[in-house]
């Protein structure tokens, strides 16, 4: 790869001690994101994808491991991070209903990042806010003075994106930004995000459970299961020939709408079993209980991440390092 990576996560571990035992939410994962790329972090509920994003954002400090952003270690809570770092890393949350304060107008909402980061004078800020709304294709005159409850879910998400852009960031975490929206609205948001990424040279960490969406959005895809990564690959290779049995299971479970899509789904693997509790992770490979292709070794030894011939990384005994 010729591009430099903007974010590197190395051996990241995040455990939550609870009375019932330790929840191993993120258990030793590593990946990096190149500048201008979109990494799709895909997993089912409880896979640890959101916790990973929260560690990157500094909502939780990692239990161990490194998070490196633009060459500097940032693995601490947000309140110990520099303002500059907060300016560069931004977030768009999943639920547009809860991510905008219902008691504040769009103008007030957009003004917070500008004031906190001392961008512009009072007078300039109004212009900046209008420009931000125009960037997300909302006419400022109609929206600045509205309260969030007066606008639709898709529009709320646009405002959340405008708020993220307010500080002129380098990197945005998108935490399931469209999963609460209908598909007919989703398209607009996704296209907007993709256009902005190109225009502003943004890098995205895109958290989602929707693999079909990732096919159309991500430059690389990473699959998580029970706090561990199963497979990371460039999007096209990933969908052309998925390797990890869990990936295959996910792909085969997706409901699709056309014949061409049906032909792309792996046929031989059928979904079975449920995700075990992250307090009681099975020994060996955590997926072995549900794996149709398990080997005797799988219940004993946890496989390592192994780089394959084409550069992709898979964590499975079926695919040892070459």
């Amino acid at each position: 790869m010729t591009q430099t990576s903007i974010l590197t996560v190395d051996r990241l571990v995040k455990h939550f001690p609870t009375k019932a035992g330790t929840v191993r939410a993120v258990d030793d994962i590593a990946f990096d994101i190149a500048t201008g790329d979109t990494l799709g972090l895909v997993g089912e509920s409880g896979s640890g994808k959101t916790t990973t994003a929260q560690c990157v954002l500094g909502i939780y400090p990692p239990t161990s491991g490194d998070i490196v952003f633009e060459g500097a270690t940032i693995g601490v809570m947000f309140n110990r991070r520099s303002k500059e770092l907060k300016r560069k890393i931004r977030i768009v949350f999943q639920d547009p209903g809860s991510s905008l304060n219902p008691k504040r107008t769009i103008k007030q909402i957009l003004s917070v990042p500008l004031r906190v980061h001392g961008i512009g004078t009072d007078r300039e800020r109004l212009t900046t806010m209008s420009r931000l709304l125009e960037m997300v294709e909302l006419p400022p005159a109609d929206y600045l003075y509205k309260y969030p409850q007066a606008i639709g879910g898709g529009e709320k998400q646009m405002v959340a994106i405008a708020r993220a852009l307010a500080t002129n960031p380098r990197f945005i975490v998108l935490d399931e930004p469209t999963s609460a929206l209908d598909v007919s609205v989703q398209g607009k948001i996704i296209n907007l995000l993709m256009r902005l990424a190109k225009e502003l040279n943004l890098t995205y960490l895109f958290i989602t459970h929707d693999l079909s969406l990732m096919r159309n959005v991500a430059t690389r895809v990473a699959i998580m299961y029970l706090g561990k990564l199963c497979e990371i690959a460039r999007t096209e290779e990933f969908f052309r020939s998925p390797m990890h049995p869990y990936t295959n299971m996910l792909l085969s479970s997706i409901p699709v709408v056309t014949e061409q899509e049906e032909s792309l789904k792996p046929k031989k693997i059928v979904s079975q079993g449920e995700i075990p509790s992250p307090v009681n992770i099975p020994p060996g490979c955590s997926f072995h209980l549900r794996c149709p292709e398990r080997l005797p070794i799988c219940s004993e030894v946890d496989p390592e991440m192994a780089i394959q011939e084409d550069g992709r990384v898979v964590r499975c005994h079926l695919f040892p390092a070459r």
Partner: protein
Amino acid sequence: MRPPLIVRKAGLKRNMLIFIGKRLFQSLFVLFGLSLLIFFIARVMPGDPARAALGFLATEEQVERLREEMHLNDPFPVQYYHWLRNLMHGDLGRSSYTHRPVTTDIVQYLPATFELILFATLISAIIGQVTGVLAGYFRNSWFDGLSRLVSYLGIATPSFVVAILLLFIFSQVLKMAPGVGRLPVMITPPPAVTGFITIDSLLAGRADLALTALKHMILPAVSLSVIHIAQEGRITRTSIVENMQKDYITVHKVHGIRSSRLVFKYLLKPSIIPTVTVMGLDFAFLMSNAFLVEMVYMWPGFSRYAVTAMLNKDLNAIVAVVLVIGLTFALVNLIVDIIIMGLDPTVRLRRGGG
């Protein structure tokens, strides 16, 4: 999506014990804080407790001796320490009004109040629940409207007003109910075993006496319970209406569950949980409302003792009264929590464990 709660059966009993232990510890802490607060106010206020205790006729020397005895010349923490140590031995000091140990007074007066309050709780629970359920189930009917109107009046009328009006109407004008007190003046009360006259009479084999006592209790108990009937009725109604809109009730209906079973089993159980919580709170509030009602009905109970203590600035008694009510409140809340654990499996499974 919420993760499942995994608790083993054996763990359940332990959870419960741990929970009760925790709650007892918390209550102890709160009572300690309460005693500190009330003791502090009792000591910092202007005036001389020793003088107040002995009255105007005592000599300066006598007062000074009592000051020594009560450790009033010591700094506040030392005073508090001595008071706390006496408390451990069941000694709350002497009442400056009755000139008897406060503990003796409380033991004597408390049963009369508890008898009254329990009766009032029973009345308000039964009437409140029944009207609440009916009003909720037949929402927007004439009954709902009427009970709403009455409950507004119930909440807005102070208990002393209710007490006076009931006494005035039923006892003085209509002569349907007996007057004040626990028993008519000429009648000797049964030997005290529990302190509850109704029960003591029955123990002594005097059913007639129990009936007389019960008659005496009706008016004050009703005066006490009016406001609680209104409140509990409203809460039950809200809860019923809320639960009727829940998906699971729709699902039960869709599966063709018989409607009597739907209402009295599947709707009622989740709906009474908030009412039970409120009933616990209400028990404590009954104790404070009893202050007024006992005054009006000359009920020889703890609450009237408390009012007398307050009117006479009887410091030791005031401190003791507040603590006793705090203790009762804590115990009732613990019982309520245990009942709720029994009713609501989510609470039962989540407490203590994961």
